[in-house]
């Protein structure tokens, strides 16, 4: 039954040229990286996972090189990894293989080579069209450089997505809408527009704590969010997820896997995965090999991860079988981010009767109050519900 879930592969490349002050990803700045060794280790880890979770010949829908800055990889390495994926699993022609890239001139030069080594979709982190904002965000490129990189990317790839960050300190709604108008003319079919968030442990957060930085008020960021939704819609984009907008057929298939709580494996330092499989016994006394959704998490530190892969074939630091209840929580929490919402019966199929994970009274109440919408077994957030979805989800889930 559950084998039918879409399946993707995530590769984490944990290195960057410089750490951005807002970033809480597992990224590390290194003078030199032994790329061949890391590339080989990722392949080894993929091989281990394929065997461990019985994934031979499982059709792969999507591959995603994330990071970090995977555009710093040598294109041949991505090629080798793509080759390994084809060898280990089953791959169709319509596979989506995305690479995250920073729009510096150096990386722009490599785009054609990436295409030649298997990449067919680019996700370009432009972040802003304003040089002052770019330098505030600690980026290594100017707006012009980014636009050049985008032009090159559009020549090389059919599918290019671009990322922006808004709701910056001092940014007004008018500033941002002017910038958004320019963004909408760039000819991309997929936009990720994120409001700046102060993530724990980042330079921005510590600045904010010391009073050196202040993000816009809830009122202002709400206004910006609503305007953003409206302008994107008017330009023909579908807000298929909270921060993601796509033209018809251009949604990120890979990210949909996360939001639909499907299956993926994650290789590389700190990568996580979720996969329906037979659970490996944890000890000799544990003979149960239940079928269920397994969550994996790799060791975070690149050196430690590399060590583990070299010694044991994989850097997996944690491997647990998710309870059906935990699966339901994840499916709701992620699924409600999507405009399409969640199919309650489908989640019940995997996680059991709804009343064990969903407070149906609360759902009914919030439907009536205009925060949720339930129709034909599909539960969605309304526009109002979207803006306060964290609180709302907390109210309707039974943890």
């Amino acid at each position, binding site marked *: 039954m559950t084998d039918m879930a879409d399946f993707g592969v995530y590769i984490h490349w944990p290195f960057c040229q410089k750490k951005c002050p807002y970033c809480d990803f597992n990224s590390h700045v290194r003078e030199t990286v032994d790329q061949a060794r890391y590339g080989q280790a990722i392949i080894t880890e993929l091989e281990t996972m394929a065997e461990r979770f019985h994934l031979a010949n499982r059709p792969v829908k999507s591959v995603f090189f994330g990071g970090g800055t995977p555009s710093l990889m040598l294109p041949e390495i991505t090629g080798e990894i793509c080759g390994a994926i084809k060898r280990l699993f089953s791959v169709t022609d319509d596979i989506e293989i995305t690479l995250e890239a920073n729009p510096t001139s150096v990386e722009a030069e490599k785009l054609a080579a990436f295409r030649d080594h298997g990449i067919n979709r680019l996700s370009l982190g432009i972040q802003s069209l304003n040089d002052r904002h770019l330098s505030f965000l600690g980026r290594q490129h100017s707006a012009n450089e980014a636009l050049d990189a985008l032009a090159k990317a559009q020549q090389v790839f059919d599918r290019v997505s671009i990322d922006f960050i808004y709701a910056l300190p001092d940014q007004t709604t008018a500033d941002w809408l002017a910038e958004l108008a320019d963004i909408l003319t760039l000819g991309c079919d997929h936009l990720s527009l994120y409001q700046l968030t102060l993530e724990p442990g980042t330079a921005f957060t510590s600045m904010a704590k010391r009073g050196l930085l202040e993000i816009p008020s809830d009122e202002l960021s709400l206004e910006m969010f609503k305007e953003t939704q409206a302008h994107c819609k008017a330009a023909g984009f579908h807000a298929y997820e909270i921060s993601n907008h796509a033209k018809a057929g251009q949604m990120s298939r890979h990210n949909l896997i996360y939001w639909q709580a499907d299956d993926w494996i994650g290789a590389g330092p700190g990568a*996580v995965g979720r996969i329906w499989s037979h659970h490996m016994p944890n000890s000799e006394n544990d003979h149960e090999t239940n079928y269920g959704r397994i969550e994996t998490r790799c060791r975070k530190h690149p050196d430690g991860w590399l060590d583990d892969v070299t010694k044991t074939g994989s850097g997996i630091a944690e491997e647990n079988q998710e309870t059906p209840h935990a699966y339901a929580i994840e499916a709701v929490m992620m699924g409600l981010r999507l405009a399409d919402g969640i199919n309650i019966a489908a989640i019940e199929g995997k996680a059991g009767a709804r009343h064990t994970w969903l407070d149906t009274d609360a759902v009914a109440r919030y439907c009536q109050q205009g925060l949720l919408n339930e129709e034909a077994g599909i539960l969605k957030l309304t526009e109002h519900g979207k803006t306060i979805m964290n609180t709302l989800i907390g109210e309707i889930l039974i943890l």
Partner: protein
Amino acid sequence: MVPISNIRNFSIIAHIDHGKSTLADRLIQVCGGLTDREMKEQVLDNMELERERGITIKAQTVRLSYTAKDGQEYILNLMDTPGHVDFAYEVSRSLAACEGSLLVVDASQGVEAQTLANVYHAIDVNHEIVPVLNKIDLPAAEPDRVRTQIEDVIGLDASDAIEASAKSNIGIEDVLEALVNRLPPPQGDPDAPLKAMLVDSWYDPYLGVMTLVRVIDGVLKKGMKVRMMATNASHTVERVGIFGPKPTSIDALGPGEMGFINASIKTVSDAKIGDTITDDRRPAEVALPGFKPSVSVVFCGLFPLDAGEFTDLREALEKLSLNDASFSFEAETSAALGFGFRCGFLGLLHMEIIRERLFREFNLELIATAPSVVYHIHKTDGEMVSLHNPADMPDVTRISHIEEPWIEATIMTPDEFLGAVLTLCTERRGEQINLTYAGNRAMVVYKLPLNEVVFDFYDRLKSVTKGYASFDYHITGYRTGELVKVSILVNSDPVDALAMIVNKEQAETRGRAICGRLKDLIPRQMFKIALQAAIGGKVIARETVGALRKDVTAKCYGGDITRKKKLLEKQKEGKKRMRQFGNVDIPQSAFLEALKMGDN
């Protein structure tokens, strides 16, 4: 056996923190009650909370044996008492069991409010009083000044006051000699029918119901059948013992002696404090006068945070009341908070301690409502009801008038803060009775309505005097007041647990202050919340808590799931600390915090 003429019974009394328990340590040590290895600071403060807060809550009795300079052996029965005003009842019982008191005064601080209150109690029961000027090791100690102060303020001869340091072991011999030479021995007839005062009783998980007694006449022996004169129940004495301070069995307690008995008593309520124990076969004719019962002056509602824990709470309260007879409880139902108990306490510290013990010893998380005093409601039909809970106030049309309790408060403060203290008392509807100076300290006596004091008066007093003032009070009686009930409405529904009774003139200010505070205490929620204060149908203040504007995670991909789930769990945990009222979640702390008056 030591003759009765060689027994001395005494209480150690003082203002809070002046060193009673530390002095008790030294006396125990010098008399060899504990070895150096067994000794620790304030060894008699054995409750976890006492040790943590460094205060005595429960009076303790120790029997010491001392060989004086005259070569004779004496039995010293020491009672260490609490200093805090809430536990004045413990002090008065201890005083009743003794013939004398050691009045400890911190030589660096001098006479404080509880010094006065306690010494007057001791004088009232005709105690011989030995003043001890403690902490003379401190550079700031001014024994001469304090000596004068004792004479001026208390009117007690302090020329023989002993200079001591309980901490640095100075003057301890002098204290012991003074006890032997200055305090009278008890009197009693060993051949008369048994008459013993039941000073205290509590439940000990290992020893069962413990009864602390002071024998007046006759002899109390193991195996004897005794009768409780108030309840008329008879019991067999299973064990007779003394605290040295460790419980030790002995054969008998004679007249003038203090110790404990275990008898075939099942519950603490069968060992009523103040009762007279007599010989079942040869009963005494008249009982001892007993004690005035302790009265609860402050009431509050305690509700389990988790409604499922109501039974647990009841069991916990029952257990706690086994060794603290001074608090009362009865079931209460609140529309806002569900099932709980209305509990009566001796004061705010007492209330705080019981709550803390419920949390620590029974793992119960509670919501406490704001404390209230007991009002006398005189109804138009002539009936008078004692109102412990503002929510239960009858309809105004059926009330003829309301009386509230008044206290007489004694405040001692360095004169630089006198102005602030007077302002505070005036704000709280106080009437000045007296104002005197002793050196650079002022002593003011005020009459105040208890409801103005009960809640945050002491905090405010400490804050306006930088902690230098001390405060003591006792209830003097009831007076008619212009009192009204202010209800708080959340989205138009009255929240019973937030109702309060206030003086009419202050109703509007208080109503506005509460709405303002609630606005800050109630987090924004998915919908906007209307807060109102009303007297009857008339709204006197209003505020709005705006709806939650935005709460959505911008980025959420595969690697973020675990962290976001943790946030959800935290959110749920946070919600557990809230009480649902209609659609509105009110944080548990709000029920207490909202009523605090603060600085304005």
